[in-house]
């Protein structure tokens, strides 16, 4: 967890940081059958990045991050299916705006509290959203979900094709943009302030840092990114179901991030990739064992491997170098 970030770390791009993008492009050309899974992975990477920002860097524990993801998904879905706004960029902006607004409003309340109360409030906010989506059937389709979502070509040129190629590249472009902004943010003084608050908020108060303002800013921004990820999910699936909201998607997202490694930028890349691919293979054949497996994995990661996959690989690399 104590990865060097903030002022002490060099923010120059290392060559390894281009690897994920090279792999993503290679997948596009070499594995055309897996593009829909790929788009799903990319969407969740963006979602996990947003959670990593507030959980891993700012240290805010939330059980309700799916509220923003779900709101983004529903805003895009409702805009398209009920109001006839089919331009993907407009939908994206509207989703980001709505999720950001919810983040600002709930963050202003939630971030004033600590511990169990904070945990409970994030959970309650997500539960309220789920309840509204479930009961406002004329708008959201309720338990049946919202279908009939149509998406116009991006910028009027790039149509969403049935092979999912446009969708994949669209997701990739947005994840890249999100990654770039978040990376800049983490290495900025703002990012250093967040890490400081996570490590010792009393001292940050003492040095005169506006703790609450910083937390609220990052919470709102993270909500916007999660909203964008939700919009992406709707645009690539052309359907919104109740399962984008509530405790289970929030929990699964936590699992993905922990699996990859929390508080490190690329943990949010590795986690969803491993989790969703494993889910794609295992969950359909052995749903019971699958859930048991992710539970067991969480317990093991917490007890024995507190840095997730990236933490383990870091430790391995360090040991190899030490011997060489």
């Amino acid at each position, binding site marked *: 967890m104590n990865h060097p970030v903030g002022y002490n770390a060099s923010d120059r791009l290392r060559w390894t940081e281009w690897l994920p993008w090279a792999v993503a492009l290679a997948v596009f050309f070499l594995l055309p059958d897996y593009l829909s899974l790929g788009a799903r992975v990319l969407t969740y990477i963006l979602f996990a990045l947003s959670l990593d920002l507030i959980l891993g860097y700012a240290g805010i524990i939330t059980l309700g991050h799916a509220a923003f993801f779900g709101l983004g998904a529903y805003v895009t879905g409702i805009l398209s299916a009920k109001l006839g706004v089919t331009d993907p960029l407009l939908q994206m902006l509207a989703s980001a705006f709505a999720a950001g607004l919810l983040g600002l409003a709930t963050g202003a309340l939630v971030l004033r509290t600590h511990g169990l109360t904070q945990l409970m409030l994030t959970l309650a906010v997500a539960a309220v959203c789920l309840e509204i989506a479930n009961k406002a059937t004329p708008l959201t389709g309720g338990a049946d979900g919202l279908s009939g979502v149509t998406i116009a070509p991006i910028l009027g040129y790039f149509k969403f094709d049935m092979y999912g190629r446009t969708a994949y590249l669209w997701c990739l472009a947005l994840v890249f943009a999100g990654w770039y902004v978040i990376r800049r943010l983490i290495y900025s003084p703002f990012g250093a302030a967040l890490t400081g608050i996570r490590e010792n908020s009393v001292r940050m108060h003492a040095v005169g840092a506006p703790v609450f303002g910083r937390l609220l800013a990052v919470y709102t921004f993270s909500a916007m990114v999660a909203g964008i990820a939700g919009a992406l999910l709707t645009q690539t699936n052309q359907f919104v179901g109740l399962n984008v909201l509530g405790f289970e998607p929030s*929990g699964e997202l936590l699992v993905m991030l922990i699996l990859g490694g929390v508080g490190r930028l690329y943990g949010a890349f590795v986690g969803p990739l491993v989790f969703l691919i494993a889910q794609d293979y295992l969950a359909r054949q052995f749903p019971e064992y699958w*859930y048991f497996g992710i539970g067991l994995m969480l317990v093991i990661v*917490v007890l024995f491997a507190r840095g997730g996959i990236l933490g383990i690989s870091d430790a391995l690399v360090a040991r190899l170098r030490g011997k060489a």
Partner: protein
Amino acid sequence: MEAFLSSLVSVAFHGVAYGMILYVISVGLSVTMGLMGFTNLAHGVFAMAGGYILVTSLSRFNLPFPLALALSFLVVAAASVILERLLYSRLYGASELEQVLFTIGLIFMSVALARLIYGTLQAPVVLPDYLKGQFALLGRDFPAYRVFLILFSAGMIGVLWFGVERTLWGAMVRAAVDNRAMAQAIGINTKRLFTITFAVGSGLAGLGGALGADIIAIQPTYPFEQLVYFLIVVSVGGLGSLRGPFIAALLIGITDTACKYWVPQFGAFFIYAATIGLLLWRPMGLFGKRA
């Protein structure tokens, strides 16, 4: 008017029954969280286990109902001791995030196990004949089982309160909640105290799950779906208190029943909204210690 009055009585009655169940399940969570500072999101697992033990011993082994209830308390309490010694105790000093993740992991595992053993459907409870039927009081009919449930829970709560307020064990628990370091310093074995308290709390959850199997359906998703309610009871009531969660549980039981009866289209919306409002007004809960 008469119709309104009878629906009012009915809502109050069912609400109290539901609230009692919520309290019996959640009180252990309040005490263990207050005592050990451990964020145990997997508390609902114990309640679900209790429910399954009751259902299995009634329908498969044809045990008498009181014995099945006792078993649900004892088996869950015993199992929780093993869990506490093997796993929970390793994380007492850990960060809140690690405790949250660990207990979510336990939830996932138990949901999978329950589904593997019992399938995804709701497990039906076969009540004994003497608890079926109606119970007439003041010219109204009440379901006999709910009457039993309220009386039995009230008895359990009485025993629990006596235990905490009037016995040596209770005094030690209260001392450890108020100031753990001081309690240790005067020679209280807090480690053993934790284990025993954890077992009693978990056993009560198992008992509550078994008693309430008729009200809160026993199914594999139970720990996920009911978690919000248990956490609301504890956080609204206040950590480490016995009285706070009792009032919170009754409030929630009655409000929830009233909402489902009169405004079903809003679902649980009011409960969540009221919780958010209450926690903003009093972040430590109604009877929590001031931070």
